[in-house]
């Protein structure tokens, strides 16, 4: 199903291969994302439902990672943990060198604002605001002055090719356009990582390619790390690494392309 060129099956027990990957990663500085044996257990009444049962991974700066797996495998849960939206039941999550356990709710909010961007399947734009106002929202939280955030937001909208739709509301935009606005919003704070939960789930194939090309472009030029949960093979094929989750654990990791052949350090 997936393109196997340069595919390396990283088996946790395969020490030689994991050493090579480790060296590659360390060369790029501390990882953008690191999880150490994280678990997440949801309690409903007397029943414990373990969504994640011990996931450890390292994602390097500038990596394009896709996470795949069957429904209920825990991939969305993992994304929420990495996105500092949900604390793990046990284990540690470290974003850009910051251990999330050290932060209170305000600290996590600030972290999300400054270092993390989100893109969702259903776009999640605020309907009563225009495109540019939507893109501005993360900057408003930070208290960035009016003129500065206007120009930054406009630049971001231009980067996704929607400058002329700045004053339009989401209801006046197509699905693809809305998703591009969402991407602009996610990138306006120049975050370290962008998390996408089925970002192309609600758009047609043409738009999927457009969206993907923006992601790859941003990844190349800005070095932003992308972590995308997806069912779409086209998406997965664009990424450097493919992580498969099943039953709350990493089943396998595959390297599809060498990270340094595409992105600058």
């Amino acid at each position: 199903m997936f393109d196997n060129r340069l595919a390396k099956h990283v088996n946790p027990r395969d020490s030689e291969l994991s050493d090579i990957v480790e060296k590659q990663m360390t060369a790029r500085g501390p990882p953008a994302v690191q999880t150490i044996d994280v678990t997440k257990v949801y309690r409903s009444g007397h029943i414990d439902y373990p969504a994640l049962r011990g996931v450890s991974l390292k994602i390097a700066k500038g990596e394009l990672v896709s996470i795949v797996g069957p429904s209920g495998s825990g991939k969305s849960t993992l994304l929420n943990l990495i996105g500092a939206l949900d604390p793990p039941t046990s284990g540690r999550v470290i974003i850009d060198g910051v251990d999330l356990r050290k932060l209170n709710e305000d600290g996590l909010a600030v972290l999300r604002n400054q270092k993390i961007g989100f893109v969702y399947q259903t776009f999640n734009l605020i309907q009563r605001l225009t495109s540019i106002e939507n893109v501005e929202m993360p900057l408003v939280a930070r208290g960035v002055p009016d003129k500065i955030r206007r120009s930054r937001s406009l630049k971001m909208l231009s980067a996704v090719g929607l400058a002329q739709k700045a004053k339009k509301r989401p209801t006046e935009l197509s699905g693809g356009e809305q998703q591009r606005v969402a991407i602009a919003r996610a990138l306006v704070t120049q975050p370290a990582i962008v998390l996408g939960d089925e970002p192309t789930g609600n758009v047609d194939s043409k738009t999927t390619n457009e969206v993907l090309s923006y992601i790859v472009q941003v990844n190349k030029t800005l070095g932003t790390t992308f972590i995308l949960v997806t069912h779409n093979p086209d998406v997965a094929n664009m990424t450097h690494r493919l992580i498969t989750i099943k039953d709350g654990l990493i089943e396998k990791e595959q390297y599809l392309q060498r990270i340094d052949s595409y992105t600058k350090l």
Partner: protein
Amino acid sequence: MQFVDMFKLAYKALVDRKMRSALTILGIAVGSAIILALIASSSGLNASISGSIEKTGANVLTIRNAGGFFERGSTSTYQLSQQDVNYLTTIPGVVAAYPFYSYGASINNGGTSLQASVVGMDLSVLPVLYQGLTVASGTFPELGDTTSAVVGWQVANPTSGTPIGLNQMVSMSVSGIKGSAGGVSYTVLASAILAPYGTALFANIDDTVYIPLQAAQFLSKSPYFTGIYVIVDNTDDVTTVQTDIETYYSTNVRVISPGQILSSIQAITGQLTLFLGSIGAVSLFVATVGIVNTMYVSVMERTREIGILKAIGYRPRQILGMFLSEAALTGVIGAFCGLALGYVISFLMGGMLGGIGGGRGGFGFGGPGGAGGVIQPVFSTELILFSLVFPVVLATVAGLYPAWRASKMNAVVALKYE
């Protein structure tokens, strides 16, 4: 997050739900308007009454027989006479004492009968008792002339019937004279007609025919007066003089002081204020509950949005602030609308309350032009500030719980909300 941005977003949120916001604002405006109108009108009423007391009769005590019109359970048969006049003038603080007779009369006017009063007293005292009283036409009768009278405006110009001109005869039937069962026929010459005045000291000047004291003595066939006006030199001394008189006479006479009247009226207006005030307060309370409800619904509807905001990096306190400013903004707009609305209602209320403070058949403390009887509402700076600040405070408090709920939402759960 900057305040300006918070309120801009709040405004956009309110505009997004125009009908809902408008109705909530209306609730606040009405409640606020009622309270404003009521307090302004009561203040106006008080001012009007105090004003007219200052104008006419702040330093005049009226002494009357205890068993008369103002009887309140007294069984005294004491009657006021010249010796009382003499005594009263000796009380320290008293400038002068003027006795008077007062009877009801039926004026015969070309077939129709009009109710009026006949008052007999030293006519030269009239301008002293009623400040600002002027003559429309004619002159006061000469001293010793017992056949002429000074006629009030309404008697001379009745609403129905023929007007009575200068130097015309006024014939009437006077009731209440001791020893006569029916009315006593009485005729006078109108040598002066008064300009319109209104009511003062429990008398309606416009509805009265004033005759000289001697003429009244002949008419009543009695040396006993209906009452005595006591003029005190200083308003501050009024209470002392009153106490002196009451101590001397105990329950044999009735002493009416303007201060008493004022406090009785103020007690009544106080009750009125309280009553109407509670209606206004309840109305405002209901409007506030309306805000809690509206905001709660808004927060629930925008669960997803709250999740997005949290994901984007809004802190709980910022989300609290955003929703709280929506509530506050509703209060601000409602307060300003309420101020305008209340201003209009105040004048309507003033018309209603005018019947109490002045005009015909009032409590006797109207001023010049009292026939109109409209109270001007009084808007003190404190009242206006209160009307602007109070609704905003209430609205903000109302928004506290829903805003707090919003800030405490779990982002992951919120994002999954349909």
